[in-house]
């Protein structure tokens, strides 16, 4: 369903050089499969998700979602594809503060170019346990509730792929499990493939398929080896 091949991404740095961030030879997720990628903060997890979502462009490689290579689409087509087929759950929820819960969910449907289905939006909020808080604005919701609204928003267009970027990082431990359970169950029910990135062992331990970012991303792997070598050299210098 999702097939990433030979994906490379780098950022321009002051002075004219480029800093490589991603070098992913191959990453595949099947339909309705749930994959967790683990990695430390700053090792390119969010960039990987943003590139797969088409919010940032790859230097080279292909990102196939179904039959479409999103990396080859022009920007407007990528936006439309993202609106229709990809759901995104952010670490910081990213609900719009001026919109109610139901409006935030419906906002997810606004840019698809097709009719908005309010019943579907209400149904999803009902399923995430917020049927009674449709007209509440984010400021009137707890952080756990806000993330549940974000989950409903990500799934409202019946996407084929859900990208979740540290979805529990900003949630108190008591509610983290609720969000993970919710994501897993809704994705199973809706037959949505999920790619979740996290640094949390507690979260990753609950999934059948877990990849370390270093195993997926050669840049991260190289950085890890360099760090290990540096650490070893330092130890030898200190204890000859």
């Amino acid at each position, binding site marked *: 369903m999702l097939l990433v091949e030979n994906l490379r991404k780098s950022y321009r740095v002051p002075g004219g050089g480029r800093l490589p961030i991603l070098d992913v030879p191959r990453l595949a997720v099947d339909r309705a499969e749930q994959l967790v990628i683990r990695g430390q903060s700053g090792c390119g997890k*969010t*960039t990987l998700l*943003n590139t797969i*979502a088409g*919010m*940032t462009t790859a230097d080279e490689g292909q990102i196939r979602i179904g039959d479409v290579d999103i990396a080859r689409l022009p*920007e*407007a087509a990528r*936006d*439309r594809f*993202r*609106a*229709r087929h990809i759901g*995104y759950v*952010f670490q910081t929820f*990213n*609900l*719009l*503060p*001026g*919109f109610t819960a139901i*409006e935030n969910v*419906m*906002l*997810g*449907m*606004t*840019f*698809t170019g097709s*009719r*908005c289905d*309010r019943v579907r939006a209400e149904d999803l909020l009902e399923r995430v346990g917020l049927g009674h808080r449709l007209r509440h604005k984010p400021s009137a919701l707890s952080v756990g509730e806000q993330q549940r609204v974000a989950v409903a*928003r990500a799934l409202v267009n019946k996407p084929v792929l859900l990208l979740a970027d540290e979805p529990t990082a900003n949630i108190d431990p008591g509610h983290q499990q609720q969000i993970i359970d919710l994501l897993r169950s809704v994705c199973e029910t809706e037959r949505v493939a999920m790619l979740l990135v996290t640094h949390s062992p507690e979260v990753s331990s609950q999934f059948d398929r877990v990849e370390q970012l270093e195993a997926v991303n050669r840049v991260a792997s190289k950085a890890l080896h360099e760090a290990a070598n540096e650490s070893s050299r330092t130890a030898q210098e200190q204890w000859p």
Partner: protein
Amino acid sequence: MALSFWRIAWNNLKQRGLASALTALSMALGVAAMCCVIVVYAVAVRQFSQDAQGYHLIVGGKGGALQLVLSTVYHLGQPLYPIPYSEYRRLVDGDLSGVVEVAVPYCLGDSFDPTTDPENPSDRRYRVVATTPDLFDKIEYGTDERGVPIRYTFRAGGRNFRTDHAYEAVLGSVVAAQSGLKVGDTFSPTHGISGEGEKHEEFTIVGVLETTGTANDRAVFINLEGFYLLEKHALSDAMAAEREARIAATEALEKNRATPAATPRGLLPPEVLYDQNDQPIEPLAEAKREVTSVLVLCSSDLGPLILNTKINKDPNQSSQAVAPAGVVTSLLEKIVGPIQLVLLVLTILIVLVAAIGILVSIYNSMSERKHDIAVMRALGASRVSVMLIILTEAVLISLIGALGGLVLGHLFIAAAAPYLEAEAGVRLAFWRLDPLELMIVPALVALAGLVGLLPAFSAYRTDVARSLSGGQ
């Protein structure tokens, strides 16, 4: 139901409620001020033009045509030197009467000060117009919105003065309101228009005119016959004799030059005249009479042309005929042209300032909204979509400001209307929209859309990934 761009823009405006409201309010106040100026100005111009309706010509002494019109129609400035009463007779039953429908004489020169303390005369003096009842019976003073002519009407309990009752008077609505005088009360006109002259005999008020919106609301009308009997209003015996001789000579020359009308076209001196106590008195001899001007309504379209030719082209004539409509139009063109230009420039300035207000308000909010814009982009909104949402916000604020301003302006006008009507006799229809006002709304919306392009372009350029990670 989709979340339309209007709804998203509206939510964004609500999110910045205070800033949006203040921007719209400042715009509304500007538009309201403009509306007030436009409406009051339009009404003033309309009423100024209307004042000179209802008759074709003014016949008066030789001199400036504008001075004749201003003193006769608007009760402004010094009246011209009077003409002999025989000139009036020529129009009523003389050689010129064939083309006249009605002729109404005016004698000007007295004033009325409503202040009761004779030691402290006020600045607010009203002109006294001595005339015949025909002014209110036969002359229309304008037309209503459907073009139907309007006649003078009297407030309940009042009536027109009678020809044969020398000391009856009628008050304009503003004079009545300012003086507090009512039907049955008496007042004394002051000789001259400076207010420093001596008081004349008392006249009894028999009627108060309904507001006409014309200069006549600010005038006092007395019976011409009574005016002639007041001190210093009659010609001396010597002057009267000289004038009679001249008239006799002229009549001999002009005999049979034109066919007079079958019936008199204006009111002539009554055979019997009554004073305040209904005692018969003798009217002033015609030879001793003069009139300041005569309002002439012609019986045909050619009438004004004929009279104009006969009166103005005759070098022996002591009078002139002036078409007030032409003079007023020319005056308005001279005054109105520049004022209209100033109004247009003011309107453009207000619209510009308002548009800049919108620009500042939205542009200032852009840095704090980059994140929200990035979220919409992450949800699939295209660059053009977020740009359109920002433009919609600009259009919404301008619509609210402009429409709110129109409503506010007309509420101001509604609130001021009774005061203006009582003070100046100006009637304001607060619901009437001037075409210039209607231009403000689309102009403002178009300009708001234009200035909205700047913040909209900023939204267009938002880097999604960077803005979501907290960078700008």
